């Protein structure tokens, strides 16, 4: 079974402001404001490069940041699921 692939809204649809190490996001399509902690902003940034499954997403994040491999897979899935529930990430 193929892995689900995820996509995030383009940069222009989400206004991001950093305050105190947290990111405030204004999501234009929904009009909602979100307050998120790392690695959520980094996940959104990586998904803006194009659709990706969890493995590809982890690869992108590891290229930028210091991510452990195995144990992060599950944690990353959980973070992406939270962003999906918040409407900031969609499944293709």
């Amino acid at each position: 079974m193929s892995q689900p692939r995820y996509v995030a809204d383009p940069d222009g649809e989400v206004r991001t402001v950093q305050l105190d190490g947290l990111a405030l996001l204004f999501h234009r399509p929904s009009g909602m404001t979100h307050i998120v902690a790392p690695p959520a902003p980094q996940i959104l940034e990586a998904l803006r490069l194009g659709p990706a499954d969890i493995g590809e997403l982890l690869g992108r994040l590891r290229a930028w940041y210091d991510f452990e491999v195995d144990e992060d897979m599950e944690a990353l899935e959980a973070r992406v699921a939270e962003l999906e529930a918040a409407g900031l990430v969609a499944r293709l």
Partner: protein
Amino acid sequence: MKHQLSLRIGTVAFRIGSAWSAPIEALRQLYRDYPEPEDGLCDFTVRLEPENFLRRWIRPSVAIQGDYILPDAAPLSLAHGLLAAEMGMNLQMALGQKRFLLLHASTVEKDGRALIMTGESGAGKSTLAALLGERGWRLMGDEFALLDLDSGRLWPFPRAISLKNGAIRVMEEEVERDRFGPRLTGTPKGEIRHMRPNRRAVEAMDKSAVPALILFPRFGEAQGLRAVGQAEVFMRLTQASTNYVSLGRPAFDALTKLVGDHPAIAVDYPDTEGALAQVETLWGELAA
């Protein structure tokens, strides 16, 4: 309407109409130094009407009507007509104001810079602002801070200060008698007495100020200070806003700038005089 009054509070013009003369006379007295709307145009209309035909005379009961209404709002007795008018004006602002981000906060100004105080009902923001307004600061408003979406400046809205319960005596000892409205007892919020802001506040009602410091006062606690993280400040101010969601992106931009550019402190205090001294100290350290 049979009885009417138009007046301007800061940049906002109201027309208040009433089926009875008493609430309009009380308002006219309370707001006697306030200007009429320029060019006669009003932003908001408030109407005080009988709950039904007979209730104009028999146990008169005031329903608040206007451009914006809360359909389930309970009517007030005519003895509380002034309160109904004030509530009606607040309601129009809270639901209808589109030019400013409205924060449920009091603001006072010194040297063109504004102190914002926000907190839950009973936290003392209104009383502190009223007292500071008599002791060297300019009162900009005790109920709503109006944040300009473009410039980030704060605009005054110096309506009559709504003093509740213990705060009434505190201000009666501070302020001349003719600035008070009638004592309203047995209202849904306990005892209420309105107080007209002083001449300085009224004369400067067109003068905006730049924000400088945000405080979250809390009355009745042991004295304590805590720096509040910016994300928490942002969250608390969105909760304190009546129109953040409806204004969308401009409100997000204005509020993130306000929070990002200014310090915010939670102030717990056991007594009002101590709080005033604390405010002056914080202002000297953080804003001056």
